[in-house]
């Protein structure tokens, strides 16, 4: 049976792993390659490396680091941050990344999704969406949550799916860093409408939150950062718990 995936996310700034709370207040959390290897040994199913400042500062991502990661890590990994055009994707895939995650660039130029799918296959194209729920509903944000758009979360996710995205990585800005659980209602609506896997992101604080997003949110995978980086939830313990709760996980 296909397993639900647990994905630690390593936010990278200047070659180091950091994690923000509500997208600010960065805290140092270690060497990206050592941390990745350690997660892989503990049973992480995939890794995501995000160059968090790339989009904001318009800086190109960390190809060299990606090459080193690819040499050392024996599970799939996705890279994102600052990917604006097809040649950024090609450079990162050639460096050894398995998938790329595009966010702001996809909203600005949705055609990029079609191009990635056509040139490299849908399986490499993760469309990351940062969205916030207000009284108007769920709306997408650009540049790491700094710029509001008029794109509705569900409409944009559906369009990305139809254009050839391989997965949707949805981060709820309301839930991110708050450690009070994932945005399971919105996730469920996404998972039940889209034909591609949905990765839950933002809000993991305890083991039960992972169970809830798999059962109630219908998520295919769950991503988290600080609860893993600071050892608050050890991955082996999390997986044993999920297995005991009847969820298919890789142990």
């Amino acid at each position, binding site marked *: *049976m*296909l397993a639900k995936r647990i994905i630690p996310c390593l936010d990278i700034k200047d070659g180091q792993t950091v994690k923000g709370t509500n997208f600010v207040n960065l805290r140092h959390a270690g060497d990206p390659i050592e941390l990745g290897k350690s997660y892989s040994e503990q049973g992480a199913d995939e890794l995501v490396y995000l160059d968090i400042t790339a989009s904001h500062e318009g800086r190109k991502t960390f190809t060299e680091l990606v090459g080193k990661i690819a040499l050392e890590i*024996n*599970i799939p990994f996705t890279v994102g941050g600052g990917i604006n055009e097809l040649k950024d994707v090609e450079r990162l895939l050639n460096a050894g990344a*398995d998938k790329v995650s595009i966010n702001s660039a996809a909203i600005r130029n949705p055609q990029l999704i079609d191009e990635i799918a056509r040139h490299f296959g849908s*399986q490499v194209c993760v469309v990351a969406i940062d969205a916030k729920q207000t009284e108007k509903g769920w709306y997408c944000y650009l540049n790491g949550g700094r710029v509001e758009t008029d794109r509705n979360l569900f409409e944009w996710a559906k369009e990305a799916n139809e254009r050839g995205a391989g*997965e949707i990585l949805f981060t709820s800005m309301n839930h991110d860093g708050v450690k009070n659980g994932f945005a399971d209602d919105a996730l469920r609506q996404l998972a039940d409408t889209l*034909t591609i*896997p949905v990765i839950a992101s933002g809000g993991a604080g305890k083991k039960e939150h992972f169970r809830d997003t798999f059962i109630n949110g*219908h998520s295919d995978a769950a991503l988290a950062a600080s609860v893993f980086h600071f050892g608050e939830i050890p991955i082996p313990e999390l997986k044993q718990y999920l297995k005991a709760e009847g969820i298919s996980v890789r142990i």
Partner: protein
Amino acid sequence: MNVAIVKYNAGNIFSVINAVKRLGIEPILTDDAALLRSADKVIFPGQGEANTTMNYLRERNLDQVICSLSQPVLGICIGMQLMCKHSEEYDTDCLGIFDAEVKRFMPQRHEDKVPQMGWNTIEQCSSPLFTGFDKPEFVYFIHSYYVPLTPDCTIATTNYIHPYSAALHKGNFYATQFHPEKSGKVGERILKNFLEL
């Protein structure tokens, strides 16, 4: 040991090079017939689409070269599918090493997303490729097309939507639908087992 990796227009070949390097062997990436024939082991990896990759192989005569190899050969993912007789993907005639038809997943429920992406278990493993495994192990899959169970060739099964072939074997040819190069320690052991054949 001399390990050659078939160079062609498929994606994800770097991952296989890195995985072989992690086992302490420096592989060569080549489309040269003589180098492929003289290697101790040949890996035919990749991710991609059947028609474009098959055309590329034919244009360079690599189809003939691969079929004529006599040392152990390991096909991975699209490599395995290209080693079958025919693929539904753009109605493509393939190499015909395995007498099998590659079919597209047809979802039965909303949860059956295509491609299958992630970790799934392999069972009924009956080959030296799987030496050291005594229970179902998880390996990493990404694919939209599959090879049905084939009595003469299937050496491991898995289940997504329905049971199908996770690995095939015939003579000196071995193949896995999953990516051993991305399957953690289990995948590493499978690659090591292949290199020790």
